[in-house]
C-alpha cells in the first residue's frame, strides 16, 4: 500500500522582477506503508516546497499527490488529519506548557478527551518528555522542542509522519538520540516516516532515498543500491601534472577521470587490488592517493556533478526564504 503517492508534481514561482523559477519540476515518487523515506538534496533543491504541498499549505502548479489515498488538492482536511508534521522551524507556542501545546493540537484535530489522556502519556513517554510536561516550552532546549513537536505530530494518530530537516541545528549527540526515537516510532507504531535532510550520514538510516537537485528527482533507491550502482571503489589521485595524469590513465587503463576538489577521481572494481598495480605503472608523479568505498556524498556528486554542501545560495534558496509563512527566527 502506498502511504504517499506523488505524480508529476510541479511548482513554479514568480520571483520579484518577473523571473520564473521551477522549484519542483515534474517529480513523481511513492512511499510504501511503514517505510522511512529520505528526501535528500541541498538547500533550495525543492524539498520544503514538496513538503508544503503535501501538507496542503502550498498548491502545486500542476500534478497532484495523495497522502493516505486522499488528494492534497481535493481532500485537504482528510490529508491534514492523515499527517503529523514537524516543520524545519519550530512551530510551538513557547509561552504555553508542553501539555498545553499538545492539548491545543488535539482539540484542533478533534481528538476527544479520553483518547487524549491516554495518548498524551504514550507519546510523551515515547520522546522522554513525560516528566517535563508542565514546563513552559520557552525553557526547553532545541532538541527537547523538536521531540515535543514529534510527540505533538503523533497525538492525532496520523498515518504518515513528515519531518522537514528535523535534525538541523541540533548537536550530533541529540541528532543520534532523535534517530533512536524515530526508529522506535517506526518499530512500535509501524509508522510511515518521510523526512528531508541534507545530511548524507542521516540519509543512510532511511529505507529508501529520493535525491532531488534543482527541483528534479535524480535518483530513487535504497542507500545500499545507490552506492552499489556507483560500480566499485573510488581512487583519488593528486598530481601537479593533471593533463599528463589524465592522458596516462586514458591510454594505459582506458579510465575516464572526474575532478574532485584537487584530486582526479576514477571508479574501479576491487580498488584494493588495483591500486598497487596502478601506482607501479604510472609514470606521472603522484603526490597523494586515496582509496575509498563510495558513500552517499559520492553518489550525489556523481549524479549531479556537484557536492551537496558546498552549494552557494542558489536562486531556489533565495526564493525559498521569501515564501511561506513563519520563517521568522532564522
Amino acid at each position, binding site marked *: 500500500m502506498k502511504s504517499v503517492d506523488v505524480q508529476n508534481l510541479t511548482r513554479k514561482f514568480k520571483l520579484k522582477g518577473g523571473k520564473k523559477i521551477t522549484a519542483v519540476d515534474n517529480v513523481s515518487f511513492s512511499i510504501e506503508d511503514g517505510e522511512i523515506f529520505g528526501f535528500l538534496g541541498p538547500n533550495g533543491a525543492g524539498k520544503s516546497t514538496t513538503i508544503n504541498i503535501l501538507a496542503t499549505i502550498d498548491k502545486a502548479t500542476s500534478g497532484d499527490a495523495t497522502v493516505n489515498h486522499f488528494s492534497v488538492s481535493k481532500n485537504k482536511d*482528510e490529508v*491534514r488529519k492523515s499527517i503529523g508534521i514537524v516543520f524545519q522551524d519550530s512551530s510551538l*507556542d*513557547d509561552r*504555553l506548557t508542553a501539555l498545553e501545546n499538545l492539548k*491545543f493540537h488535539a482539540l*484542533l484535530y*478533534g481528538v476527544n478527551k479520553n483518547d487524549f489522556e491516554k495518548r498524551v502519556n504514550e507519546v510523551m513517554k515515547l520522546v522522554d518528555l513525560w516528566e517535563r510536561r508542565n514546563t513552559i516550552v520557552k525553557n526547553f532546549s532545541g532538541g527537547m522542542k523538536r521531540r515535543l513537536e514529534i510527540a505533538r505530530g503523533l497525538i492525532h494518530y496520523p498515518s504518515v509522519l513528515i519531518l522537514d530537516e528535523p535534525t538541523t541545528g541540533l548537536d550530533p549527540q541529540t541528532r543520534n538520540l532523535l534517530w533512536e526515537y524515530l526508529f522506535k516510532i517506526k518499530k512500535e507504531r509501524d509508522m510511515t516516516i518521510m523526512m528531508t535532510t541534507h545530511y548524507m550520514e542521516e540519509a543512510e538510516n532511511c529505507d529508501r532515498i529520493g535525491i532531488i537537485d534543482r527541483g528534479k528527482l535524480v535518483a530513487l533507491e535504497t542507500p545500499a543500491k545507490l552506492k552499489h550502482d556507483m560500480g566499485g571503489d573510488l581512487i583519488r589521485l593528486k598530481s601537479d601534472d593533471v593533463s599528463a595524469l589524465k592522458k596516462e590513465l586514458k591510454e594505459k587503463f582506458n579510465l575516464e577521470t572526474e575532478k574532485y576538489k584537487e584530486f582526479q577521481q576514477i571508479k574501479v572494481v576491487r580498488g584494493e587490488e588495483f591500486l598497487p598495480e596502478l601506482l607501479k605503472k604510472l609514470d606521472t608523479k603522484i603526490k597523494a592517493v586515496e582509496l575509498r568505498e563510495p558513500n552517499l556524498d559520492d553518489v550525489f556528486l556523481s549524479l549531479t556533478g556537484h557536492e551537496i554542501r558546498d552549494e552557494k545560495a542558489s536562486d531556489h534558496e533565495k526564493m525559498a526564504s521569501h515564501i511561506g509563512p513563519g520563517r521568522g527566527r532564522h
Partner: protein
Amino acid sequence: MKKWPHTSGREGGGINMMKVISTIYIIWRREIIRYWRDKARIVSSLIQPVMFLIIFGAGFQQTLASSDLPVDYIQFMYPGIIAMGIMGVAMFSTISTVWDREFGFLKEILVAPVGRSSIALGKTIGATTIATLQAVILLLISPLIGVTLTFTGYIQIIFLMVLLGMALSGLGLFIASLMKTTESFGLLMQLLIFPMFFVSGAFFPLTNVPDWLGWIARINPLTYGVDAFRQVMLHGQIDQSLLDSISLYPIYVDVMFLFGFLIVMILLAVLAFNKRN
C-alpha cells in the same frame, strides 16, 4: 480516533457548525491563556488609561473650569478613557496573528483540519474578550470618579464594550493579516490609534468643532463608542438636556454604526486572513 464528518473546509460544501464553534473556542482559549500569563501586559494596559485620566483630568479641569462644559471634566472624560482602553487592547491583541506568523506557530494552525474563517473569528473574539475584561476592570474605579451605574446601566455598558471591542478587533485583525512583521504592525497601530483617540470626542465635545474635524470624527468608529458610552454612563448623573447637548447621536444610531462597522471589518479580516494564508 474520533472521526469528523466529511467536510471539505473552505472548498465549500457543508460547513459543520459544531466544528466551527469548537475551532473558535480553541483559538479563543489560547488567546486568553496567553493574555493571562502576561501580567506585565495586563498591568500596563490598565495603567495607561488611568494615567490619562489623572494627567489630563488635572490639567484640563483648570482651563475648562471657566468654559461652559456643563459637567465635571473628569466625569466627562471617563467614558472616553474606557473606550480608549478598549481600542488599545482590542487592536493590539490582534498582534498575536503577526506574532504567530513570525514565530512559526501559525503553521501549526494552518496545517490543522480546520477552516480559516473559524481561526480568524476565534482571534477576533479572543481580542474582544480581553478588551472587554480590561474595560470592566476600569469600570471598577467609577465610584472614585463619582459615576454610579444602575444594573441596567451595567448591562448596557458591557454590551457596548463588547460591540466596540469586536469592531476594533476586526479592524486590528484586518491590518494584522496584511502585515509581515510585528514592528510594522506596531508602527501602523500607533499611527492609527492616536488620531482616532484624539478625534473621538473623548477629550472635548464634538458638538462645536470645525467642519473638517467633524467629518474626520464621523468616520472614526471610536467616536460612536465614546458617544454611546458617555450617554449610558452619565445617564441620571447630569440633567438629560445637558447630556443631550454634549452628545452627537441617539444611542441607537451609535449602536447601528458600530454594528455595521463590525460586520464590514470582520468580513474584511476573514477575507484578508484567508487570502494571506
